[in-house]
């Protein structure tokens, strides 16, 4: 399944299927991007990051794709598991010699259906 990360949309995916969470970022000058996972009652947890000089980066079961032309970021989760159920945030920042700040997207709630 796919979603666009605006107004906290919800994405439901069958366990074992792949999921794609999308994010449109705002600042064309942003050069570093991060995906965070936030489980209920917990703080955001780092998943994977990517710099603007790359267009793809893979981790364990997760892949981040960056399209700078259209300012779009996506997170692919392979073979989803119940523990993947959470709210996922993309975040962007501009390298600014110590004054960096993360700007978060609105998040997408992913629900894995057993």
């Amino acid at each position, binding site marked *: 399944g796919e979603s666009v990360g605006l107004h906290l949309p919800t994405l439901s995916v069958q366990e074992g299927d792949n999921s794609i969470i999308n994010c449109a970022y705002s600042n064309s000058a942003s050069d570093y991007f991060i995906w965070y996972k*936030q489980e209920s009652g*917990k703080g955001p947890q780092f998943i994977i990051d990517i710099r603007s000089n790359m267009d793809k980066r893979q981790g364990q079961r997760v892949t981040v794709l960056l399209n700078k032309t259209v300012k779009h970021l996506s997170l692919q989760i392979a073979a989803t598991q119940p523990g993947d159920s959470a709210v996922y945030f993309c975040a962007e920042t501009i390298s600014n010699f110590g004054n960096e700040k993360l700007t978060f997207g609105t998040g997408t709630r992913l629900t894995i259906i057993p």
Partner: protein
Amino acid sequence: DTAVSQTPKYLVTQMGNDKSIKCEQNLGHDTMYWYKQDSKKFLKIMFSYNNKELIINETVPNRFSPKSPDKAHLNLHINSLELGDSAVYFCASSQDPSSGTDTQYFGPGTRLTVL
């Protein structure tokens, strides 16, 4: 053994009161942050401190005053609490944001409810 810890986890108080939220990190990081997450899950930075020095202040009302006694602690004091201050407040820390690829580690959050 928690990397970034916050106290209290829940805080319920009356409008007009003054309250503090404490944050500690044992990661040896130089930079700490406060974020506010509203009821729609929107997460926005409020402050950042690097080695006890204020770096970012995102036009937060001056009723909010962060205090950093040392680089492992960044407390948030809020005066004259208002209904709109109700939110979940997250503390975070990172090693070196100037590297441009610095990961921020978040605490578990403090849910503040103003009645």
